[in-house]
């Protein structure tokens, strides 16, 4: 019986990449909900720090093609 249930979270994949440890490949999301992926929360932190994924909500302003900062 395991008590270590891994939490996952939905992620927007910024670009194609592979995790050598889990041998999992991820394909870049195109903004459609079905292209978002569930990623282990711990791994998400590393991928996000590397700029490979981001929170799905962050994708909305990017639709225009330009970032609007301040």
């Amino acid at each position, binding site marked *: 019986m395991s008590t270590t249930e891994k939490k996952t979270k939905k992620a927007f994949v910024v670009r194609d990449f592979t995790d050598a*440890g889990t041998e999992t490949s991820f394909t870049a999301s195109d903004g459609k909900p079905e292209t978002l992926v569930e990623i282990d929360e711990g791994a998400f932190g*590393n991928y996000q720090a590397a700029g490979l994924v981001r929170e799905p909500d962050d994708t909305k302003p990017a639709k225009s093609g330009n970032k609007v900062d301040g």
Partner: protein
Amino acid sequence: MTSMTAAGSALAISAASPATNDIAGFTALAFTEIGGIEKIGPLGASFAKVEFQPLKGAKQKYKGSADYGALQPSLALDSADAGQTLLQTSADDETQKLYSFKVTRQDGTLRYFQGRTFGMPETIDGADTMVTAAPAVEICTKIIKAPAAV
């Protein structure tokens, strides 16, 4: 006999820091394996040598400050590899942020530490060689040795 070869060893990185600098702290972190590793290299602390030569008698030697050392792995560059990308991020990071590292040996025993990556120069050599990188990870915390995960 507990000798082993290096085959099957792995190096992994995490952007997070452990709550405590011990096995429990590092075990709680999620690590991303760095792909394409050819060699991990030497790993271990050394001490500065403090010497004193008295007028009478042999030279005296004392252990000075500890230096946790540096890791200089070599790897075949792969821009799609998540671990390599995070390692490059740590090299590009201009802050003093510490990244966590995990070395897994063939028998499953582990080495944990935190460090800063001072560079990740690429080597483009002859036609029949891979494009490689030689990151320089300076180890900033005591290296924690952990048994194989059960």
